[in-house]
């Protein structure tokens, strides 16, 4: 089925089978493996992407349902070699260990900023990370990273 969508700013059309999940289109068909798959039950958040600016689990959306939508993946955040402030904050605050959950955590961080603004309490962040699992259990530094990333975004107007 011909599906037209914008991925990280580039408008494109793909012929996808209806049973293709959005995450499968990204990873398998387009080779964009930054978005991860960590579960089969829609619970881990490793697959989070922004759809029209709103975070959703790309493992639980059909690619054909993204018709006409703008998708932002982890690959679309940096500006050339300059990391997005939220990505830079994860590096600065050791917000990752093995890194598997990180793309989904960074997207979840952007979602929290979208809804709550730039001044975030640790409690609010922890609450809003309910849909993201980190098997390395590095939650304390993830929370610090999102808190700092939110502030840095304000400073950078990002």
């Amino acid at each position, binding site marked *: 089925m011909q599906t037209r969508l914008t991925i990280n700013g580039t408008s494109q059309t793909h012929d996808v089978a209806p*049973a293709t999940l959005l995450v499968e289109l990204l990873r398998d068909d387009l080779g964009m493996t930054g978005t991860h798959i960590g579960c089969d039950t*829609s619970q881990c958040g490793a697959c989070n992407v922004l759809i029209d600016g709103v*975070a*959703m689990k790309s493992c*639980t*959306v*059909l690619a054909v349902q993204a018709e006409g939508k703008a998708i932002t993946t982890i690959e679309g955040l940096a500006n050339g070699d300059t990391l997005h402030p939220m990505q830079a904050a994860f590096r600065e605050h050791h917000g990752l260990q093995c890194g598997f959950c990180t793309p989904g955590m960074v997207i979840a961080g952007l*979602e929290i900023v979208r809804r709550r603004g730039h001044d975030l309490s640790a409690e609010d962040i922890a609450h*809003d990370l309910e*849909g993201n699992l980190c098997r390395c259990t590095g939650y304390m530094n993830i929370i610090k990273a999102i808190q700092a990333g939110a502030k840095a975004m304000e400073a950078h107007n990002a």
Partner: protein
Amino acid sequence: MREFAYARPGSVAEAARTFAGGGEAAFIAGGHTLLPAMKSRLRMPDTLVDLGGIPGLAGIARDGDTLTIGALTTHATVATDAAVAAAIPGLASLAAGIGDPQVRNRGTLGGVIANNDPAADYPAAVLALDAVVTTSAGRHAADDYFQGMFTTALTDGEIVTGVTFKVPPASAYAKFRHPASRYAVVGIFVARFAAGVRVAVTGAGPGVFRWAEAEAALSADFSAAAVSGLTLDPADLNTDIHASAEYRGHLAGVMLGQAVTAARRPHR
């Protein structure tokens, strides 16, 4: 997932027609129940009819003593909408407690009540708020709509278009959430109307149900003290790896007290 045909009709009538012509067809809204079930092959429809392209199925309207929410309205919208918060704060907080932020950005009211999972949250609100479920075929009163585990008054191919809730002077929802899935181990929705109090219980039994004893006690005296010590008979409740029927019966009493206390707090 097994392959299937996919259609995105532009109207409710066209969706119903496509469904009727589709072999083993299924509607898809947010997909947050259906797609996980298809991944595990619990469901294997050969045609998916996507309701997402139908205009007018999402939205919230207050009309005097009623609040109507379109079937395709997401949990996130209900949780943050000013009209919902002003009319039925218990409904806003219920929506804010479903799953996680990403689930709430995608899952819909219509999908929840069509599915009628015995541990889902919305059925408790629909039943306690004496709501009317509007569909492509007509209207169903909440008291007739829910018919036990994953069973409703909907016939094959009937599309939920919206839910009209009665606005009560006071209401609240209290749930003991499963820590991993966020579904209700037990959830209680309490609504106080001039004509009496309605109490709906989700999570505890094979489907949402009203709690007559609690309703009678609270209609006489709307206070947590009036229902202190009240529990549900475990004979009718679920036992699973998360909780025994006895535990759920006791928990229902605790959640009831919390819901009444919250409902008595003045509106913010």
